[in-house]
């Protein structure tokens, strides 16, 4: 092993060590558990940055820690692929994790599961790093499930709360649906190619019948739909907000939910050789982006608004990878991780300042009382709305420009409408929560969060401001594109550029859409030019549809949950309790019946035993003689 291999394996080692240390001996660290965990992640981040520069100035490499399954021609080890795609992801994952860890020290202060929280968080970071660097599908699947498990235990972190436990279970079960498809996809890939190593698979893909490639791609995409909360499996993500807010920031905004996008970018060869599968990805992404933004318009729970916004932004990323613009998708993934992590951390700060209040109707006028939180939140909101020079502008625009220039006009129109709705709902939140008159419960003492929480927020806000400049100059000349596009050189160019619309016109349209959304929110909630209640009454059915989340939970309840419960009840009460238990109990009670009859023979009288014995011997002798 050379120096760079050791650096590559040190990155996952530190979170792993942190998990073991805090998991086994957490209670001895008391309040220092958070600092210890954060230090480990920061070290991991430093190594990731070093690796980033090594790979930038040399080239990618593959390194094997140890051979895992070496059987005949099937060779799968614990090995990592370190290329430009994975180092970008590594820096993002460890960087956002480090910031969230530091923030958590303040946010989780005094929680009785303090050490447990940080050990789970470290386990999550370890799993996510391994997911990013694994170079074969077996390892990928293991850590794909591991991050899902971490998400489950962290959503249900406050396990005394029934809603949190239910949300954790929902996340786990909904993910099962997608992961089932993912597993079948891996099996199919293995049957077709006989290997699970990325490199070998990618060289074989062009020679595989396109129908098989399509089937594999769609099955793998099923896993991405579950993990990245796309329609129809998006229902778990809003409920996942029951977990601690830093968990929402790290797992349910920045890292784990983007694993689906990363997976498609990593398997770009498979997806680009199946135009149909890519079109499915585009369709699902576009529809989800629109649907989630539509639901977010009318919600009142601030974390849920941001959660729906995450689903919507993930939809944009899937649009990008669905048209073969993998770098644009990853660029939005990175910038989204920063500004959405920021929005969640600031939302957590608002909760902290209001003693856990999440309802938008009980906020208002918070700007004067928590200035840092308000300013950083607005930075996040501007980035989300795609207003220059914030990062969201560059990354979302890169996607929408590619969508337009590759000729997917319908998706482009939906994307622009979604951008408008996005700007509206996030500024509705900002205007109602931070400005206007206060509806805060007078008993609550509103206060700014401690420095340990505000400094991470400010750092993320700075990044949300500057990271977008990686996206200039526009299109294929940008810094980010020229860095990353070599990672996708093997992709089949199934969707070539058909238009050559200049970037400034497309950007102008997007910015106008964003500004229009902000302006509408301004009219409704600051100027109060029109009473929102009036608009609500005009569009009553549409409002109800959005407010009730398009009734998707209810539909699932009706067509899936109820029949499953009914069938399970049938299995329990009829098959199990009546037939199986009945058979077992019947055997037992028939034995009991005969035993009570025959035990009369044993009466304790010695003479009767002797008599029986004598009669028996006499009978045997008699039989012996007459034989």
């Amino acid at each position, binding site marked *: 092993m050379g120096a760079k291999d050791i650096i590559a394996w040190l990155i996952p080692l530190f979170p792993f060590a942190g998990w073991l240390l805090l998991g086994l001996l957490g209670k001895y660290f008391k309040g220092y558990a958070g600092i210890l965990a954060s230090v480990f992640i920061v070290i991991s981040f430093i190594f990731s940055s070093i690796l980033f520069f090594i790979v930038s100035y040399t080239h990618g490499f593959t390194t094997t820690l140890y051979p895992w399954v070496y059987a005949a021609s099937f060779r799968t080890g614990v090995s990592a692929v370190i290329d430009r795609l994975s180092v970008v992801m590594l820096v993002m994952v460890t960087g956002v994790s480090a910031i969230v860890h530091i923030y958590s020290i303040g946010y989780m202060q005094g929680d009785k599961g303090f050490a447990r929280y940080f050990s789970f968080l470290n386990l999550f970071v370890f799993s996510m790093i391994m997911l990013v660097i694994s170079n074969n599908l077996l390892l990928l699947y293991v850590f794909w499930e591991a991050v899902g498990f971490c998400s489950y235990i962290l959503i249900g972190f406050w396990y005394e709360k029934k809603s949190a436990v239910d949300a954790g279970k929902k996340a786990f079960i909904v993910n099962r649906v997608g992961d089932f498809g993912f597993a079948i996809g891996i099996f199919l890939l293995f049957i077709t190619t006989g290997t699970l190593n990325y490199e070998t698979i990618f060289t074989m893909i062009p020679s595989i019948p396109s129908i098989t490639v399509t089937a594999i791609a769609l099955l793998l995409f099923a896993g991405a739909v579950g993990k990245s909360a796309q329609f129809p499996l998006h229902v778990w993500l809003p409920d996942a907000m029951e977990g601690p807010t830093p968990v929402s920031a790290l797992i349910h905004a920045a890292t784990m939910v983007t694993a689906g996008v990363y997976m498609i970018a990593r398997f770009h060869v498979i997806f680009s050789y199946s135009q149909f599968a890519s079109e499915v990805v585009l369709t699902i992404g576009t529809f989800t982006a629109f649907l989630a933004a539509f639901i977010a318009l009318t919600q009142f729970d601030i974390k849920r608004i941001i959660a729906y916004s995450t689903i919507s932004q993930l939809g944009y990323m899937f649009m990008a990878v669905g048209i073969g613009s993998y770098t644009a998708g990853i660029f939005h993934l990175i910038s989204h991780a920063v500004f959405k992590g920021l929005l969640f951390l600031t939302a957590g700060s608002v909760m902290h300042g209001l003693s856990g209040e999440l309802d938008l109707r009980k906020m208002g006028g918070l700007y004067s009382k928590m200035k840092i939180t308000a300013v950083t939140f607005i930075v996040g909101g501007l980035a989300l709305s795609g207003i220059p020079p914030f990062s969201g502008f560059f990354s979302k625009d890169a996607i929408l420009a590619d969508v337009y220039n590759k000729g997917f006009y319908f998706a482009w129109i939906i994307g622009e409408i979604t951008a408008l709705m996005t700007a509206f709902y996030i500024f509705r939140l900002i205007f109602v929560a931070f400005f206007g008159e206060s509806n805060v419960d007078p008993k609550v003492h509103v206060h700014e969060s401690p420095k340990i929480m505000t400094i991470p927020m400010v750092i993320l806000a700075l990044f949300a401001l500057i990271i977008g400049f990686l996206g200039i100059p526009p299109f294929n000349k940008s810094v980010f594109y020229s860095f990353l596009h070599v990672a996708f050189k093997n992709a089949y160019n199934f969707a070539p550029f058909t238009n050559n619309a200049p970037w400034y016109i497309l950007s102008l349209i997007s910015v106008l859409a964003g500004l229009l959304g902000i302006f509408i929110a301004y009219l409704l909630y600051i100027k109060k030019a029109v009473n929102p209640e009036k608009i609500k009454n005009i569009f009553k059915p549409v409002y109800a549809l959005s407010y009730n989340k398009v009734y998707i939970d209810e539909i699932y309840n009706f067509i899936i949950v109820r029949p499953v419960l009914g069938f399970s009840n049938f299995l329990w009460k009829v098959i199990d309790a009546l037939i199986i238990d009945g058979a077992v109990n019947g055997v037992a009670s028939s034995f009991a019946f005969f035993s009570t009859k025959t035990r009369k023979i044993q009466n304790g*009288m*010695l003479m009767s035993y002797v008599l029986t014995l004598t009669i028996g011997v006499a009978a045997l002798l008699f039989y012996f003689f007459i034989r």
Partner: protein
Amino acid sequence: MSVNGYLIVASIIFCIGALGVLMRKNLIVVFMSLELMFNAANLGLVAVSSYLNLIDGDIFVIFVMVVAAAEAAIALGIAVAFYREKGTVDIDKANELKL
């Protein structure tokens, strides 16, 4: 004298012993009847052994007598323990071995 006479006597003694075991209530008497049955069997064995000019039966009898002596010690020990427990040697009082 044929072996039949010995065997008839042995059978009679054996039946007396068996009936004694079955019908008497006193533990000591039951035990004595049991000894009668042993000795009837011994008588049969030595009779047949001498009739067939073999030594096997005689050796077997020696063994039976040794075992019977050992068993007598245990049986009398049981009788003493039983008497201490119940204050009697009436065999009908030994009726606790049941559900």
